[in-house]
């Protein structure tokens, strides 16, 4: 195996754009079918009324808000990680950044859709926008939902630009390598990119600035999402730990999402020469760190509640520890802590397969975590007469499933139209051949992280 040269990089990475196999259509139809089902479910929900979902008094948030938090969490895979790696100039980031950033943008788009889906009157969602209306009433800037609007808006704008800017030189590559209609489209997309030192320099400067700006924004986004809960005087919601807890959880699930995406791309786009086991190894270590951090936060949250021994809090506490929600709770702990710590902590298991298994566990576990934050508290607020239990109905299940399909579909389409690995960054990295990478030693791994 030789080190891919410039032309080989071009060929390998542009090939998926130029050649279309039947598998692509199959995937599009497969995932598209789920997405269409989800759209139908959503339209039915608007047409027949919100009641076709399983929500009820007093559990007015459940699957949709879980999905919202979950996807916003997944979005922390990309831009945040990629920005950190960019700032510390970690060389191994180069093949990873784009597929990570794409996750951010798509997950944010899907996540931002859920506040709409969950609205009682989604056709009036624009009332959240700060615009001068004939109603003479502006949005309430004291509402965490408006903070959400601003935070997600900034994050989505920033992430999208953060993804798009480095794509311009790659569009130029595709422009030069294609003919016909494709050539004309990519010529427009390349915005006349040539590659002068000034352009390169300005691009890299811009990426530096954006990376610095996007990190606090990413942290703020999930902190604001956590405020949606911690601002309400609800048992187990009204806590100061939610900000960092949510950010850590978001990065945690984000890394897991990234690992899965990388493994899938490597396998199906045959990018074995670009995405190496060492990438998985490094991200796997990050996953381990985040699993330990997550465990720390959960312990913190639980211990404080337990020690405080407030009657309402303890009702919710026991619901998750040993009553109706206990099976879900302990599944979550297994998936989020036991599984990743074992698989990522033992070097022998820290393989690509190990990473993928742990990541799936974390994805499931983190989804459950959000569900278990939202539903038990809402179902057990202070007055036992108004206690309630929740189970989803088809509308919610279909829409939830559809968003996973939508993520896959968007990813497939993206990989079809944009080089999934940043070509110019890969070239700039002058990647040494795998043969030159010294065997994984502790020293080496630390060096690679540049931390």
């Amino acid at each position, binding site marked *: 195996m030789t080190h891919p040269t410039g032309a080989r990089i071009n060929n390998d990475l542009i090939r998926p754009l130029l050649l279309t196999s039947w598998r692509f259509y199959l995937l599009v139809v497969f995932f598209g079918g789920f997405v269409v089902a989800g759209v139908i479910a959503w339209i039915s929900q608007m047409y027949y009324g919100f009641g076709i979902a399983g929500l009820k008094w007093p559990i007015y948030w459940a699957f949709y808000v879980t999905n919202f938090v979950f996807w916003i969490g997944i979005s922390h895979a990309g831009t945040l990680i990629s920005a950190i790696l960019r700032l510390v100039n970690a060389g191994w980031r180069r093949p990873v950044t784009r597929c990570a950033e794409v996750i951010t943008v798509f997950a944010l788009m899907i996540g931002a859709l859920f506040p709409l889906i969950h609205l009682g009157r989604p056709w009036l969602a624009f009332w959240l926008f700060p615009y001068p209306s004939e109603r003479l009433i502006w949005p309430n800037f004291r509402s965490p939902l408006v903070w959400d609007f601003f935070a997600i808006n900034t994050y989505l704008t920033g992430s999208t630009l953060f993804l798009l800017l480095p794509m311009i030189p790659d569009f130029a590559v595709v422009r030069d390598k294609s003919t016909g209609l494709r050539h004309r489209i990519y010529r427009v997309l390349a*915005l006349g990119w040539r590659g002068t030192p000034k352009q390169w320099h300005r691009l890299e400067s811009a990426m530096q600035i954006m990376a610095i700006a996007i990190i606090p924004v990413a942290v703020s986004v999930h902190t604001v999402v956590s405020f949606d809960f911690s601002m309400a005087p609800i048992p187990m919601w009204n806590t100061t730990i939610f900000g960092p807890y949510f950010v850590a959880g978001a990065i945690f699930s984000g890394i897991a999402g990234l690992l899965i995406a990388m493994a899938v791309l490597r396998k199906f786009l045959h990018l074995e020469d670009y995405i190496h086991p060492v990438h998985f190894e490094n991200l796997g270590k990050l996953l381990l760190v985040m699993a330990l951090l997550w465990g720390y936060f959960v312990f913190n949250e639980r211990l404080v509640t337990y020690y405080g021994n407030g009657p309402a809090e303890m009702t919710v506490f026991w619901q998750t520890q040993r009553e109706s929600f206990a099976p879900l709770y302990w599944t979550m702990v297994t998936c989020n802590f036991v599984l990743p710590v074992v698989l990522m902590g033992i070097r022998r298991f820290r393989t690509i397969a190990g990473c993928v298994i742990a990541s799936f566990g974390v994805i499931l576990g983190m989804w459950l975590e959000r569900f278990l934050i939202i539903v038990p508290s809402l179902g057990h607020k202070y007055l036992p007469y108004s206690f309630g239990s929740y189970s989803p109905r088809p509308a919610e299940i279909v829409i939830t499933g559809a968003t996973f399909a939508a993520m896959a579909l968007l990813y497939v389409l993206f990989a079809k139209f944009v080089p999934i690995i940043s070509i*110019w960054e890969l*070239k700039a990295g002058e990647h040494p051949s795998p043969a030159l990478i010294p065997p994984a030693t502790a020293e080496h791994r630390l060096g690679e992280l540049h931390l």
Partner: protein
Amino acid sequence: MKAVYGLYPDGQSAQQAVNRLRAAGLTDRDITVISAQPMEDFEFGRMDDSTWMWWFACLGGLIGMSVGLALSWYTATAWPMNVGGLPTFAWWPKLIILFEMTMLGAILATVITLVVSAIIPRKGQTLYDPEVTDGKILVGVEDPINVSLPAIETALSSPSGARVKRTF
């Protein structure tokens, strides 16, 4: 447009070509270099690297913050509403809006600066060759005025591996 340029297989020969052009009396402003990746390891890759982008970003941030402040101040006071006994203009929640707007301003300013200063093509700067995409480095001169064409061609063709082309 009249232009002459050479294509070079690696950074060293491109650097030589740039050096020869300078020796022939051309300024950096007249020399066009195009590559498929940043060439910051070489001196020519750092041409024209001074930028005000950081300052524009800060300015954008300030503007964003001001917009956020103005928006939240105006909307709160235009129709004061009592909610939950909070003050009409509550600073703590507003800080979130101010922060997000600051960051949005900074990001947009950065991108606008980039697009305006480096990506929108300028008149008379159209020299390009698709071979760059395959790893060649283009060094050339557009519309030479002070220096004669043959002199430029000589300078461009001297490094090894050079391939010189003309456009008219």
